[in-house]
């Protein structure tokens, strides 16, 4: 049998609510990792990724 319209709608709403939180978590993690690799001035990280920063066109360094 095909699923009824009611069953399908119920399932979709549940996934959408969870997905918003998950997307925000992913974006926050991406922002954090990007910041750590590309912008932090902590000497060990900065020195390690310095050349990478200067080879990516839009990444500012000093």
């Amino acid at each position: 049998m095909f699923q009824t319209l009611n069953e399908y709608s119920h399932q979709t709403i549940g996934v959408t609510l969870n997905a918003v939180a998950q997307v925000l978590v992913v974006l926050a993690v991406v922002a954090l990792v990007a910041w750590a690799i590309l912008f932090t001035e902590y000497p060990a990280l900065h020195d390690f990724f310095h050349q990478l920063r200067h080879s990516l066109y839009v990444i500012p360094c000093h």
Partner: protein
Amino acid sequence: MLKKVTLLALTAWLFVYPSTQSQSDVVVTLETTPASGFIGPDETLTHTTLRVVDRDGQATPNAYLKLHLDAPSGNAFISTDFPIVEDTPLFEYEGALPEGVLAFDFIYPIRGTYRFQVEAGRNAATPAFADTLTLTLTENRNEIINFAGLVALLLGLGIVAGFIIGRGANARRMAMTGLNMWLGLGLISGSTWPVQAHGGDDVSDTEPFTELSTQGDLSLAYAMTPGAGRVGTLNQLNFTVTDQAGNPVPDTTIDISVWHIEDDKPVFATTLAAPEGKTAFEFQFFDGAEHEVRVTAHNAAGSVDLNKVVQVEGLSPPLSVKIKTTFYLVLIVLVGIIIGLRLQLVQGRRQQLLPVGPVGA
């Protein structure tokens, strides 16, 4: 009517105040090797030649030249490699040119249009020519390719994340993973760390210094103010060659190069005439790393060398630039996530709409 009056006024103004260039009997030409299209910012040591020439195109002996070189202006949307360097002075020189030529090798730090403000004349008393010459550089091809790769990577990451989220991954587990990363990396990603020169050397002594070297009968003094470089600002460099009695030695030639120690490459080099035994210029150390200034002075009496390591203080890019760039990167991932979610939704609909068994069973 108003247009006519404006036109007449403008014509009269042009007649009364002809441009400095048209009155001048000399002009300044700018030439680079390689040509601008082949210069990679922060990469290519570029031979730059400014010539004071007469109307026949011949270099003018003993011409006076004043040069002020400015870095390109910034872009409101995308930063360059050195945002602190944007729109700051890089080099200043003023003096007589025995052969009418000022030549220097320089690694131009960022993409954009460099402005050479020049004043020139047959002598310092009559600088009849004034103009702003420009040199426009585009970004390294490799950097553009790398950036395209980064965009593809972030987009791919977003698509995969969107696809997984669309399948209904465990939100709590994902949140805990994110929280752990915050705790682990948050401590070291703060922006309050002091920016140090590459290699960890602290730049604390900025007092002006004078370094002296003596070989044979000649002494070479190199003075710098401030005593350390700082990205975005100029340092005054003075060079004086004296004899045993302390008198400046005329007709001296001084070779000067600025060596980037970490990258082991020159970033600037020039040969300046010192008709009275001394010369000077202002220079910006645009990279926050140690440099060595290497000087050789020579004249009829002999030659003298001097090497001096200079600390340079790097400045962290503005917080607004960092935030803006991070936002762009996150935005790319978000686009990928949306694509991934759409893909998963389409696939999910197809699977859900398939018949689960024979009709009527």
